[in-house]
C-alpha cells in the first residue's frame, strides 16, 4: 500500500521540526494547568475514602501512570510498524523517543502501586498477574532501549526495535485483562469498563484531570525528544545549519 504524498511531505524532517516546535507550547501549558487543577481536586477537594482513608490519593498518580505505560507502548509499537513498513524516518524517531518516557511511567506505576500496597495489602509486592505483567512491560521498554543502543546503524536499530516492540504488544491485553482472567489481588477495572464507572464523581474528576494532563505531558516531551534527535541525525542538512546559526 502506498501512502499519499502529503503524508511524506508532512513527515519530512524539516516540516516535523517546524510544526512540532509550534505544537509543543499548546501541549505543555494546558498540561501544567490541568496538573495544578488535578492536584487541587485530588489532594484538597476530594474527600477521604471510607475504607482506605487518605492513602487512596496515590491513585491519582498511579492510575494515570499505568494508563500511560500502556498507551505509550502502543504508540511506540505502531510508530515502529509504520517505520518498518513505509520507511518513514520520523516514525522511527517517535518510537525511540517514546521508550524512555514509557519506561518512566511504567516505573512510576509500579512504585506508586507498591507504596499503596504496603499500607493497604500489607505487602510491597505480590506476584499477582497484574503486577507481574506490568513488570514485564518495564522489561520490554528497557529491552527496547538497550537493543537500540547496541546497534550503531540508526536504520537497523529502528528495525530491530520495531520488531521487539511489536512482539511485546501481546503483553498489553494481558495487562488489561489480567484482573479478569486470573484471580488477582489487584482490583478490577473501575473506569475503563462498559458499565458505569464505580467511582464517585468527586474522585473521578481529579483522576481524569491527571490522566489528560499526563497525555499532554507525553505529547510535549516526546516531540521535544524527537526534535533533538532530528537535529543530530540531519546535521548535514542545510535547514539544520540554518537553525543552529539562528540560535543565540
Amino acid at each position, binding site marked *: 500500500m502506498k501512502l499519499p504524498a502529503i503524508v511524506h511531505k508532512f513527515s519530512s524532517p524539516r516540516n516535523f521540526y517546524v510544526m512540532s516546535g509550534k505544537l509543543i507550547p499548546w501541549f505543555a501549558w494546558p498540561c501544567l494547568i490541568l496538573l495544578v487543577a488535578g492536584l487541587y481536586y485530588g*489532594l*484538597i477537594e476530594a474527600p*477521604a475514602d471510607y475504607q482506605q*482513608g*487518605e*492513602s487512596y*490519593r*496515590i491513585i491519582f*498518580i*498511579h492510575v494515570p*501512570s499505568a494508563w500511560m505505560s500502556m498507551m505509550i507502548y502502543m504508540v511506540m509499537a505502531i510508530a515502529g510498524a509504520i517505520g518498518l513498513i513505509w520507511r518513514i524516518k520520523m516514525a522511527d524517531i517517535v518510537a525511540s523517543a517514546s521508550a*524512555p*518516557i514509557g519506561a*518512566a511511567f511504567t*516505573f*512510576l506505576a509500579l*512504585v*506508586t502501586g507498591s*507504596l*499503596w500496597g*504496603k*499500607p493497604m495489602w500489607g505487602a510491597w509486592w505480590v506476584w499477582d498477574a497484574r503486577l507481574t505483567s506490568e513488570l514485564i512491560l518495564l522489561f520490554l521498554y528497557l529491552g527496547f532501549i538497550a537493543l537500540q543502543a547496541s546497534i550503531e546503524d540508526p536504520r537497523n536499530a529502528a528495525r530491530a526495535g520495531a520488531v521487539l516492540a511489536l512482539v511485546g504488544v501481546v503483553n498489553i491485553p494481558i495487562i488489561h485483562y489480567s484482573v479478569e482472567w486470573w484471580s488477582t489481588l489487584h482490583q478490577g477495572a473501575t473506569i475503563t469498563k462498559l458499565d458505569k464507572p464505580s467511582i464517585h464523581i468527586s474522585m473521578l474528576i481529579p483522576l481524569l484531570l491527571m490522566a489528560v494532563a499526563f497525555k499532554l*505531558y507525553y505529547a*510535549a*516531551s516526546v516531540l*521535544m*525528544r524527537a*526534535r*533533538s534527535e532530528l*537535529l*543530530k541525525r540531519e*546535521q548535514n542538512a542545510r535547514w*539544520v*545549519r540554518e*537553525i*543552529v*546559526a539562528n*540560535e543565540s
Partner: protein
Amino acid sequence: MSISEFFHMGGYAVYVWSSYGLAFVVMLAIFIKPVLTRKQIIRELRMKYRQQERQQQDNAQAEN
C-alpha cells in the same frame, strides 16, 4: 482541614508524599533532559560547522 492535617494525610503521609514526590522528580527529569540535550547538540553542531568552514577556507587558500 488544617495544614498539619493535610501534610499528615491521615497517617499515610510517608506513602502519599513519597508517591507524589517521586512522580514529580521523574516527570521533571524526563522533561528537562531533552532541553539540555538540545542545547548540547546545538553547541556541538556549531563547533562542527565552524571547523568545516575553516577547513574549506584553508583548502581554498591552498589551491590558490
